[in-house]
C-alpha cells in the first residue's frame, strides 16, 4: 500500500507535516513499515481540499485532527 501526502505550500500550511508525522508514528506503532510506503509530493491540484492524501490513487482529504480516524478506516481496515 502506498500513501502519498501532499507537502506543497497550501497543504503545508494546513498541517501536512503534522499529518506526515502522525502517519509515521502510526505506521511504526502498528509495525507496518514493510507493508505501507509513505511518500510526499508537491501539489495534487486540489488545494482547497487539503491536506490532500492518496492511498493507492484513491483521494482523501485529511487534517491533523482527522488523521487517526483516516488511518484506522482507510489503512488498518484495508490491509
Amino acid at each position: 500500500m502506498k500513501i502519498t501526502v501532499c507537502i506543497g505550500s497550501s497543504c503545508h500550511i494546513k498541517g501536512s507535516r503534522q499529518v506526515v508525522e502522525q502517519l509515521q508514528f502510526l505506521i511504526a506503532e502498528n509495525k507496518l513499515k514493510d507493508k505501507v510506503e509513505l511518500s510526499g509530493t508537491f501539489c495534487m491540484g486540489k488545494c482547497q481540499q487539503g491536506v490532500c492524501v492518496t492511498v493507492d490513487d484513491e483521494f482523501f482529504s485529511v487534517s491533523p485532527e482527522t488523521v487517526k480516524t483516516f488511518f484506522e478506516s482507510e489503512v488498518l481496515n484495508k490491509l
Partner: protein
Amino acid sequence: MRKFDTKVQYLKYKVLREVARQAWAERLPVSAIDIPKTIVPGKTPTMRCCVYKERAILAERVKMAMGGDRSNPNVIQVIDIACDECPAAGYEVTDSCRGCLAHRCEDVCKRGAISFDHNHVAHIDKSKCVECGQCANVCPFTAIINRKRPCQNACKVKAISINEDNAAAIDDQKCISCGACVYQCPFGAITDKSFILNVIDMLKKSESNTKYKTYAIVAPSISSQFSYAKLGQVITALKKMGFHTVVEAALGADMVAKSESVELAEKGFLTSSCCPAFVDYVGKNFPDMLPLVSHNLSPMTTIAKYIKQRENDCKTVFIGPCTAKKAEVQKESVKPFVDAVITFEELQALFDSLDMDITQFEEDVLDNASYFGRIFARSGGLTDAVAQAIREQSLNFDLKPCTCDGIEACKIALLKKRKNVTDANFIEGMACIGGCINGAGCLTHGEKNKAEVDKYGREAYEKTILDAVSVLQ
C-alpha cells in the same frame, strides 16, 4: 510602477518580452528578424548614432534572448557592436588640478611617476605608474581620476580585457559567470544568454501539465522582487502561465544546512557550495582548495533532485536572481535535475509577454521552507542556518564562521586559509556583495531588500530546519 533599476535592463526586457510573444505564437524563428524594427520603429534614433545601428545591436540582443552562441558554453557574452569603447586610460590628471604647492601626489607616489609642468600642474608618467591609486586618494581637489571601463571595474576576477577592435572581451577561462559586468555595463554590451525559449517550449509541450508536470523552483530572493505586487500573486501568475506548482528553493537550502553542518562537524573545515560563481572561482583560482568546498549540491539542485527522484518525466525550472546558475546547470552533476534556469528579469518579460496584470490576480501561497532556508538569499544567512542546524542536531562543533560577500572578500578568506592564518572553520562564499539579493538577474537592487528577505523568513510557517525537512523523509 518601477520595475527595473536601469534603462539597459528595460531594453533587454523589451527584447525578451517580444521574443517570448513570438514564441507563444509559434512564429519563431522566422519572425525573429522583424523584432528589432518592432522595438525601434521609425527613423529617429533614441540610443545610438542611427536607427540602423540600433537595430543591428537589437538583432544581437534577440540572438542572446534566443539562447546565444551555442558553441560557446559561457552564458555571459559580449555584444561587440554594442560596446561603446569606453576610455580605459587608468589614472589621469584632470583640469581640476590647480597646480598647488603641496604636491601630496608626488610625495605619496612610490614609483616617481608624477612630474609637474611650468604651471605646477601634475602629470603622470604612464611607463612608471602601477595604478595603485594613492595619488588620487590624497589630492585635495580630487583632480586625479581613474578612467577604467565599468565592466573591468565590476569584474573582480579580471576576466575582461580590451580586444584589438577596442571592444570588451571576456576570457572564458577566468569568467565565473557572476554577471557583475552585465549589470554594470552602461551600454548593455555584455549580457547573459536567455533560456526562456526552452521554458516556453517545456510549458507548451506539457499540454497543461497532462503530458508531464513542470515545477517552478523559486529562489528566496524573490521576496525582494516584484515589489509592485504581492508574492502570492506572482505564484498565481506562475501557475496561470502553465507551471504545475511552485516550490521554494529555500527548502533545498534547509536540506543543505542540515547536511552541510554534519559534513562540517566531520571534516572540521568547509567552504559553502551554494553559490555557483564562488565554487567556480575556487576551481579556477584555488584548485588545491576544491576538496575543502562542501560536497553538497546547491539548494536549487538539492530540491530539484528531490522532486525528480519522486516523479518520472517531470520538468524543473529554476527562477532566481543569478546568471551563474545558468552555468551551474551545464554541470554533469546538475544537468539531470534542473531543466532550465531563468532570472527574475526574464520572468517579468514572460509575464508581460502574456499581458498578465499580476496585481489583479488572487493570492496563492508559497510556504515550504523555514526561516533559515529563506535567509540564504542574503549574506550571512547561510552561516546563520548552519549554526542553527548544528544546534538543532546537537552536533559537537564550535562554529567559527567567516562570512564573505563579493569576490574580493572571498579571495582574502581563501588566501588566509591557504596560509593557515585564520581561526575560521567555515567560509560562507557569495560572489555578489550582499548575497543573492544583489544578483545580476534581479529586477531591482535596493537597500531594503535584505529587510524584505528577513521579513519573508519570519513569515515562514516552519520555524526550525528539522521541522521544514521532516516532511521529506
